[in-house]
């Protein structure tokens, strides 16, 4: 374990060899139930209190960007599903949006609406899973997760009937979507949205007022708004610290300006606010879904002029970003006129949100570190790319 602290341990010069004296060096390692994947935190503990926490990445570094440089723009689309493998449709949208910005493509009206519908469904199922895993980290082993996954399966059924795959949808193309809605999908989606609203009330009735949840999350992992902005934290974590910044409202991409939805803001920036923000965001997403499903226009889903075969954008660069469930997911593409991108860069929201993990966990008990990490909502496919 001492190998993991090769950087100078300033405050703990007395730490030498086998945990001499009080300090205990511990690796909450790549294989650990609380790290939601192969994430590692090297922790120095004084009894139960965390004195130092250094995250270690790279255990799922699958070289997504290097592979993308060796193949055409379109063939990287299925790889974006595997970035944040909970929300493949928002990854697709971010990539498609950036390439459309790079090449100046137009997207028909119906495709924009379908993109909003699928993105909001993805946001709901991602937040559901997060709350399930957060409660599991807190010790409610299994029950909330069981309910969350039961609802997630209904949304995955919708994705499967629309795109053909449960998790890896590979649905969006540059200039629209791959295929139109199957018959009956609209009614099914409306029923699922109806069911989700009822389920959310029941879920929240069980959890939000729960004393154990409040005791374990209130005033824990507090993040100030200035520190959040400077550290590049985005998404629900940033809004839990009270910063009103949502890329849907700032960039107004897609047809989001046609829906009126509110942006929930927290005022303490602690883990309870992060939990509550996600529940409120789910309610807003359901509101958007009801409106979007009601006035979905007719028309083509793919821009007739878009060429899929031999797609060669002009030389140039573009940075496109969307409000993914975990934060601002950005793609930075530099093209030099050839069918392969010159440089393909993904801006991962989970990695940026981990910048402040040490500040939030400093001095807290070890059990709180697990809950704080759960509330940050990381997915290793996106953190390590």
């Amino acid at each position, binding site marked *: 374990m001492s190998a993991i602290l090769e950087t100078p341990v300033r405050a703990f010069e007395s730490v030498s060899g086998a945990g001499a004296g009080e300090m205990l060096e511990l690796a909450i*390692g*790549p*294989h*650990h*139930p609380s790290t939601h*994947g*192969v994430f590692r935190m090297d922790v120095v503990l004084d009894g139960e209190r965390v004195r130092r926490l250094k995250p270690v990445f*790279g*255990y*799922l*570094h*699958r*070289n*997504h960007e*290097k*592979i993308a440089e*060796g193949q055409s723009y379109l063939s990287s689309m*299925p*790889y974006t599903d*595997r970035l944040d*493998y*909970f929300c493949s449709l928002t990854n697709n949208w971010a990539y498609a949006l950036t390439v459309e910005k790079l090449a100046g493509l137009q997207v028909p009206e119906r495709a924009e609406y379908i993109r909003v519908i699928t993105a909001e469904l993805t946001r709901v199922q991602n937040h559901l899973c997060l709350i399930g895993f957060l409660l599991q980290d807190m010790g409610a082993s299994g029950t909330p*997760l*069981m309910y969350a*996954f*039961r609802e*997630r*399966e209904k949304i995955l059924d919708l994705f499967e009937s629309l795109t053909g795959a*449960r*998790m*890896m949808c590979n649905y969006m193309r540059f200039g629209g979507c791959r295929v139109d809605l199957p018959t009956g999908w609209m009614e099914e989606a409306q029923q699922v949205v109806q069911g989700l609203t009822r389920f959310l009330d029941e879920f929240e009735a069980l959890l939000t007022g729960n004393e154990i949840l409040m005791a374990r999350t209130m005033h824990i992992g507090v993040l100030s708004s200035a520190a959040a902005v400077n550290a590049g934290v985005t998404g629900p974590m940033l809004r839990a610290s009270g910063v009103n910044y949502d890329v849907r409202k700032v960039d107004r991409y897609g047809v989001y300006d046609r829906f009126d939805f509110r942006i929930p803001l927290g005022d303490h920036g602690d883990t309870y606010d992060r939990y509550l923000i996600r529940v409120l965001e789910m309610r807003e997403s359901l509101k958007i879904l009801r409106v979007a499903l009601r006035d979905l226009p007719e028309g083509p889903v793919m821009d007739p002029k878009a060429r899929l075969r031999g797609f060669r954008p002009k030389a140039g660069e573009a940075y496109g970003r969307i409000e993914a469930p975990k934060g601002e997911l950005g793609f930075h593409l530099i093209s030099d006129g050839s069918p392969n991108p010159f440089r393909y860069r993904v801006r991962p929201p989970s990695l940026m949100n981990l910048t402040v993990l040490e500040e939030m966990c400093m001095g807290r008990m070890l059990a709180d570190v697990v809950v704080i990490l759960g509330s940050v909502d990381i997915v*290793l*496919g996106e953190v390590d790319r």
Partner: protein
Amino acid sequence: MEVTDQELKIDLQKQGVLMTSLNELYNWGRKNSVWPLQFGLACCAIEMIAASMARYDLARFGAEVFRPSPRQADLMIVAGTVTKKMAPQVVRLYNQMAEPKYVIAMGACAISGGPFKQGYNVLKGIDRYLPVDVHIPGCPPRPEALLHAFMTLQNKIASQPLTGPARPRHLRAGAPSEFSVPQCGPHGLVPPSNPAVWRPPTAAQAG
């Protein structure tokens, strides 16, 4: 008319008399309580979790208890991409598991590197370092595919004799229970594969 054991057993069963052998009893107990190691690497781990949830219900196979510690697990489901940085940990966890232990390589990444095969940090399949019992193709394989893998594994456990040359590895004193853990060298893993386990497929050159 020569009556084989099997038919005799079935007839007796009809009369309500159950016949079994020590071997069947041993394997019956083992195959219906395979405890998997909680070992999710990437996207396949989410499908593994979904398989253990209410809808696909891994509990019907007695395998819904996911043990975090390798000491209490008998099955390692390698669910996701094994990178070169993670490979030593995977092999070390396998070594720390108690016998009898099995490995399921879930998903194309665990079998052969899958879509990330050209990656410089991706191990081209876990069977370079570990003996794999069941391979599940798919990226990610559907939860039903994982259930089918459990059925395959249970058939494999059921067909393992207690004695004789064909008995499984954990019953043979000579067979190794541990495999060498690779080191992360300057450019990749050293050794690139474990010769004791991995024999690259020879190209069947026609004619």
